[in-house]
C-alpha cells in the first residue's frame, strides 16, 4: 500500500489490492506489463528485496496452503493455467517481520519500499 502511494505520487499508475487471487487476476487482465509488490517472509533479513519473474513457474506457488494463501503466487499460476497471464509479470517481495495489527513498517522496510519504487520508476523511464 505504501509502495502504491509512493508510485502514484510519482505519476505511475498503481492499484492497491489486498492480495486475494481473483482480485489480482481481475486487475491485471489484459495488461501486458505488471509489477506486483508484496510483503513476504522467507527468513531473510528485514527489508531484503526479492524479485521473481513469472516467466517461469513460481516455486512453492501451489495452492497447498490455506484459503488465505490464494495470493499472488496462486494468482500467477492460475492465470498461467487459464492463459491469462500478462506478457511480463514481476513480483517484488519486501521482507517483513512485524505484522501485528497497527504496527508500523520498520526503517529497513521503508528503505526497501523506496528502493523498489525507484527501480520501478527507472523501468518506466
Amino acid at each position, binding site marked *: 500500500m505504501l509502495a502504491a502511494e509512493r508510485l502514484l505520487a510519482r505519476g505511475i499508475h498503481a492499484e492497491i489490492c489486498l492480495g*486475494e487471487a481473483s*482480485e489480482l487476476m481481475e486487475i491485471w487482465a489484459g495488461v501486458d506489463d505488471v509489477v506486483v509488490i508484496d510483503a513476504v517472509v522467507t527468513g531473510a533479513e528485514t527489508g531484503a528485496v526479492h524479485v521473481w519473474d513469472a516467466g517461469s513457474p513460481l516455486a512453492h506457488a*501451489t*495452492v497447498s496452503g*490455506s*484459503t488465505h494463501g*490464494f495470493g499472488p503466487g496462486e494468482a500467477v499460476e492460475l492465470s498461467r*493455467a*487459464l492463459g491469462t497471464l500478462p506478457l511480463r509479470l514481476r513480483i517484488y517481495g519486501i521482507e517483513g517481520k512485524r505484522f501485528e495489527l497497527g504496527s508500523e513498517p520498520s526503517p529497513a522496510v521503508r528503505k526497501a519500499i523506496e528502493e523498489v519504487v525507484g527501480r520501478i520508476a527507472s523501468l518506466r523511464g
Partner: protein
Amino acid sequence: MNGRGGRTIKVDTLARVEGEGALYIKMAGDRVADVKLKVYEPPRMFEAFLRGRHFSEAPDITARICGICPIAYQMSAVHAIERALDVKIDPAVRLLRRLFYCGEWIESHALHVYMLHAPDFLGYADVIEMAQDHRAIVEKALRLKKIGNHLVQVLGGREIHPISAAVGGFHKTPAQAQLHDLVSDLEWALEASLETVRWAATLQFPKFEQEYEFVALRHPEEYPLNEGRLVSNHGLDIDASEYEDRFLEVHVKHSNALQSILRGKGSYLVGPLARFNLNFDRLPEVARKVATEAGLKPPVKNPFKSIVVRAVELVFACAEALRIIAVYEPPSAPRVPVANRAATGQAITEAPRGILYHRYSIDENGLIRTAKIVPPTSQNQKRIEDDLREYAAQLAAWPLEEATWKCEQAVRCYDPCISCATHFLKVVIERE
C-alpha cells in the same frame, strides 16, 4: 513407520484447508487404533485481545480472525453485544445483514466447492492442475467468487476484513441504486449456482454414511443466517444464552484448537449438512427443487456429499440476495445509538462452515471484560476424528499412499478453517 500387520497414515501438512493442521492415524491390522487431527497453527489469542477494548471495536477486531469468513465474526459479535445491551435494530438493517452474509456465503462456498474440493473428485492435486483441463469450471468459480466479494465490498466497504459493520447497524448503508447495480451479476450467479448443483450431483461419492447429531440454527420463517434457536435432530432446542450449559470446550494435547462436545454426549456436526437437514423446508423453492433434482433428500449423512449441499446453499444465497435487493429501502439512519452499560450477551450465527458462538461481558464503561468465541471448525474437530476412525478402517486394505490421500480428502469435506479454530495436512497413518 510401518511394522508387520499395522501401518501409519501421516499427512504432515493438510493441503487445501485453511490454516495449518496435520492428521495422524494409527492402524492395528484392520482396526483404527488412534486418530488425531493435529492443529499446530499457533493459538491466536483473540479472546484476550478483546479484553479492555470498547464493545464498538469488537466487529473490527474479530473480523481479523479470518480472511474468508470475517462477516460471520462481525455478525456474531454485533448480535451478542446487541442482545446484551437490548438494542433493537432497524428492519432494513436486519435485511442488509442477511444480504451481507449472502455475499460471504457466495464467495466462501464458491471457493470451497470449486477450488478446494472439486480437485479431489476430478483427480487433480490442486485447482491449478485442474484449470488446465477444466478451464470453464475454474473461470465460473472465479466469477462466482468475484460476485460474492463485490457484494461484500458494496456493503462492507472492502472485500477482506470489511469495515462497515457496527454495533447497532452499519457505519454506512448503500443506496438502492448501488444494490440494483448488482442484480445482473447475481442473476448470472444464480444460474451458475444451479449449474453447480447439477454438476456436483454427477460426481462419484464414496459410500460412507454416519449417524450424526446435526446442530444448526432454526428460524420460524427463514433459512438461518443471523437468527434462530439452536436445534439438533436429537431434540436440542435452546436459545444462544444456554449454549455453554449444553456444550463444552476441551483441550486435547495434540491440538492448539479446543474441541467442542455436547455435554454428556460427545461429537456433533455443524455446517451445510446440518443446516440443510434441519432447515430444508426453509429453503426457497428454487433451491429445494434443484436439491431434489440432484437426488438430495434430508437427512444427507454422507460428508462427501457436502459439495452438493454447499452448491444448494450457493443457490439459496444468490436467490436470497436477489429477494432482499428487490425489497430493500434504506433505513432512516445507518445505525442506532448504543449506550454503555454493564451486561452480558450471547449470540450464534451461521458462518459458511457452521454455527459460530460469541459471548461478551461488558462493564459500565462499555469495555469488554471477557469474551468467548467458539468457531465452527472447533466444533467439528471431534466429529472429523470420529469420522476418520470409521473411514480409515474402510481403507485398511488400500496401499498406504492412496489411503493417505483419501483420508486427507475426507478432512476437506468439512471445509475446516483452522485459523479460526485457533483464535486454531500433515497426515500420519501408522500401521502396526
